[in-house]
């Protein structure tokens, strides 16, 4: 698995875990965050309170979802897809593609119904920027 891969060393994973946890705990409307490679391997995630989640499956699904979204966008002549949203009665799921020097990744943010489209997108953009910067700096 990539967690133990050269591309993503343990020290970087620890850093990501801590950044994701900081964001998740500072934003009330954010339930949890998951970061995976574009091909579906889990890289890092925040630790959601009170729920058991299988991040192996969530990472794979997030990358499948991003893959389908990207293809749908391309098919409808919008080639540079950046992210996609799933709306539910109880909240939002937002996926963003991250392109960094070393790797393509998918960031998934799961928001509860205290959030709305604007806040959710704005929050996830900020998190995406921090993570991308961090990944780009890391050699």
């Amino acid at each position, binding site marked *: 698995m990539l967690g133990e891969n050269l591309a993503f060393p343990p020290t970087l994973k620890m850093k990501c875990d801590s950044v994701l946890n900081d964001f998740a705990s500072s934003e009330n409307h954010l339930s949890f965050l998951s970061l995976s490679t574009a091909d579906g391997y889990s890289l890092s995630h925040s630790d959601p309170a009170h729920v058991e989640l299988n991040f192996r499956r969530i990472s794979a699904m997030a990358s499948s979802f991003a893959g389908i979204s990207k*293809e749908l966008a391309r098919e409808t002549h919008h080639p540079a897809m950046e992210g996609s949203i799933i709306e539910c009665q109880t909240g939002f799921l937002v996926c963003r593609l991250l392109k960094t020097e070393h790797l393509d990744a998918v960031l998934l943010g799961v928001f509860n119904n205290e959030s709305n489209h604007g806040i959710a997108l704005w929050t996830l953009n900020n998190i995406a920027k921090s993570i991308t910067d961090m990944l780009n700096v890391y050699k």
Partner: protein
Amino acid sequence: MINGTKILFIGPMGAGKTTAITCISDDPPIKTEASNSARHISDKQTTTVAMDFGRIYMDQFNAIDLYGIPGQEHFDFLWPILEKGALGAIFLLNCDTTDQIIQNSLEKFCNDFSRLRDNSAIVIALNRANENAVSLCHNWLRENNIVLPVLMADPRNRDDIIMTLELLIATAEVDLLPEGEIHDAG
């Protein structure tokens, strides 16, 4: 509306599912490729993360729909979804590896697609294979009492893929024969 019959391409990462579908589809296929971060498993640029979809048109009403699964195991949640309603599957396998890995893949995919396996609706197409690999698969099938055809096929070669489709269709056509005898058989 076009009436599509579904044929599935299964097999592990790097087996050539996307390549095969691209090779025989009439339309440019829909692909969901992402950069491959598991180059140690299969050294190629990209890997499928959701599915491939291609089509062969028969006439203005009928088509064969070609679906490719993402081969990596963490995508196995998609396999039963993609398998629904499939007439059969072409099971591609890259044999440029150890006997053990080949056997593990046979076991994994024959189990995960057991509905198709039990209906003999799978054709095993080996690539980068030699006759030893063919015997290995043949023997494995026998030991496990599984009755499926095995052949060598290069997923980049249209004729090879068509030959595999032909075998798959031949087995599907046996099911179109009257029911009565099928109950007696076995």
